[in-house]
């Protein structure tokens, strides 16, 4: 019997660093972990097979990773079969495995359908900093002629594009947490940086037998892009929705912290 742990979070939300941490702790994340390519700039610790699968399902539905509206996907039989093959190989070779891919936020229910017992670690970051980081990256890539100009331009030509992306992905995560509270742990990037013992908490909650690794080994505290000025928004309604989603995420991570406090008596 295998256990599965999926690391799910929006782009630029700390999932790469979390994946690095858990990879060092012994979580198998894939047979071929991608390096960052211009066409996949955030590709750290992403399993090539998994990313390709997600990309193909998105392409089937005439979408890219830059998704700013809810997705109700068509999933063909070929894609289901591919998912099952991916699962079968990993189940047969690893007692604990998982993957990290921000695209997975949109496909959590597909994975859950095939892996009813899979656990999910949700990592989130404030919309202001995620979207700022995204915008920075895409503007520099656009000027340097790297990657897809089409995608870069969307961040500047479509009002509130990054914010909508953040909402779509994080609302999908909230929906998953709501449907499967026993199989979800939610942490914020700030929590981990401040020392939340995520590996210990995962082991405690789900008996995953990960090796406890110091957070400093995976998280570089000096790298932190934060928006210093207020976030521009063209339609205030999106701001309201973002605030609502943020507070629901904070509520979930608050529950994670409370659960930890109950486990660790304060002396």
């Amino acid at each position: 019997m295998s256990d599965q742990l999926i690391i799910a979070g929006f782009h630029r939300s700390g999932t790469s660093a979390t994946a690095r941490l858990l990879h060092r702790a012994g979580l198998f994340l894939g047979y071929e972990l991608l390096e960052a390519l211009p066409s996949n700039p955030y590709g750290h610790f992403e399993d090539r097979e998994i990313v390709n699968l997600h990309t193909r399902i998105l392409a089937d539905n005439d979408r890219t990773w830059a998704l700013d509206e809810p997705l109700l996907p068509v999933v063909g039989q070929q894609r289901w079969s591919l998912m099952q093959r991916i699962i079968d190989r990993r189940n047969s070779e690893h007692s604990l495995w998982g993957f990290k891919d921000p695209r997975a936020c949109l496909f959590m229910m597909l994975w859950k359908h095939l892996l009813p017992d899979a656990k999910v670690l949700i990592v989130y970051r404030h919309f202001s900093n995620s979207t700022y980081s995204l915008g920075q990256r895409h503007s520099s890539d656009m000027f340097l002629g790297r990657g897809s100009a089409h995608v870069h331009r969307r961040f500047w030509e479509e009002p509130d594009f990054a914010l909508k992306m953040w909402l779509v992905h994080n609302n999908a995560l909230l929906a998953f947490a709501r449907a499967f509270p026993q199989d979800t742990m939610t942490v914020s990037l700030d929590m981990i940086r401040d020392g939340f013992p995520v590996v210990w908490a995962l082991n405690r909650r789900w008996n995953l037998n990960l090796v406890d690794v110091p957070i400093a080994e995976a998280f570089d505290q000096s790298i932190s892009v934060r928006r210093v000025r207020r976030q521009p928004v063209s339609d205030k309604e999106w701001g309201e929705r973002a605030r609502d989603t943020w507070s629901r995420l904070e509520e979930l991570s608050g529950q994670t912290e409370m659960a930890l406090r109950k486990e660790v008596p304060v002396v």
Partner: protein
Amino acid sequence: MSENDFYTPTDLDRLRMENELLAFEVRFLKARSGGQPEVAGSPVSLSRMTHLEEAETDLKLLLRRIQNSPLGPVARTNKNFRTLSERYLRQPDRALAMSPAQRTVYLEGAEKDLKLLLRRLGRGPLGVAFKRRKSFRTLQERYL
């Protein structure tokens, strides 16, 4: 045709909603058909354009890496390699000046060239060496 054969939509909301409905149906039909290539002359979808641009970028990256590797001097003696370098590395901003239709043709050419290059590099004794590199295998997986 009589005047009764025409109508002028005056309700913007209805137009927008109708467009959304029909676009949604077309997207579904494309997904159901397994993502068949676009019919000649039809507008290129956003996802296809993104894919083409990524293919061009990855092709340039691959050409640069070969050029800068120990294989570079040997590669430069190959006529096909010189053609690709001339087309994609020496005139990087050429595509920016093209019309949308020309640019689409150019990018589709880049995708074809990338696929051809990956196939050729993946063959023979050199192919073994290339396939050992993770990034090469990534590109093969994505485009072949």
